[in-house]
């Protein structure tokens, strides 16, 4: 599970930036990121909390989100 970049990488914040468009491929990540962006906008969630949750989701689905991690982190 060690393939997911650490939570302190700035790209996680960029992923949650509503001005940025990412063409993600994994369905649950697409849905989760969309929801997290809305929750941050409405003040229901902090960016730190959102990154914690998305990071945990990516660790769970490490293989399935591999391509998306490359997209976000430009590896």
């Amino acid at each position, binding site marked *: 599970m060690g393939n997911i970049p650490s939570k302190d990488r700035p790209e996680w914040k960029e992923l949650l930036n509503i001005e940025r468009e990412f063409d993600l491929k994994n369905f*649950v990540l697409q849905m989760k990121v969309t929801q997290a962006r809305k929750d941050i906008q409405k003040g229901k969630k902090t960016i730190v909390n959102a990154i914690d949750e998305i990071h945990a989701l990516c660790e769970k689905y490490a293989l399935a989100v591999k391509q998306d991690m490359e997209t976000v982190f430009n590896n």
Partner: protein
Amino acid sequence: MKSKLYKVDIVIDMIKQGQLLSLAGDEKVLSKLPKGNWIAGTIPYFMGVERGLFSQDLIFVNQLSNLVNEFSIKEYDSNNIQEIANDSYENGYTIIIIPPFQDVHKDFALKSQDIDNLYDNPILGWVAGKDLDSDDVPKTYNGKSTMSFSDKAIAVHVKLPSEKVGRLEIVNIFEQDRKGITIRPLEDGFEIVDCLIDGEKMNFAKYIEDHNIDIKPPLTSSYSGAIINVSFRELKDGTVSLYAPVFKDLEYRLSIPVDNYVTDFEKNIPKTNSPIEFSCNCILNYLYGELEGKRIENFTGPITFGEIGYTLLNQTLVYLVIE
């Protein structure tokens, strides 16, 4: 897993063996089943192993992976549907069947994205239906009691061992028409009267009629790259009715019509080494794509009045794999 159509007597044997089953069939056959570890919803349309078909005699069976022999079956209505994700196991998946156009259906559709921990585990399933030429009432069944409901959803939560993970995916053959208009609803809901079309307030039904827009392809919105469909139900008295809600904080676009549904589905269904645990597809794809008598490779399942993939979906194939 053998996900396919069976005769009633064989399904009864499976139930008596204690198997954990998700079932789809006509009320006439589902009402014959004994108590056991099963949930069901009514529908007589299926994508079988060999072809799409209508049957009121056969039952579609998904034998669920009950790898640690731990599951729970629970009924949901408007009062507790918000608890569905919290009711799931720490690692597992949930299959839910919802009756159409009831409060639980509307509440789930409008509020699912506010459910706590929604994305922790796959939550997928379908909306029950009926013979389109009948006055039958769509129902759900709790196999533990064999009780049926026209107003309650039924779900099975299944626990997975720590080394396994459930992954929910969708196949949507519709693409957004990025060169066309943008549609911004003025409020959340299953209907659109006025909306902003390219930023200008207009009556949506009149716009559709004036521009002779085909309403078989759905409205679409992008969720970070996932194209989520909202299907048109009807245009009447200046109102556009929909099979799923639109949300005022999302921008929608029309979609590009599909020429060959079978080819497009087969092209978009990924090859997976893991067997598909559960899948379903939409009645509108079945009708508009004329799928009766046609086979879609690697897909079997009920043909449904709506699909669940964390939220209510339309004209979408939903599937679950255990990896």
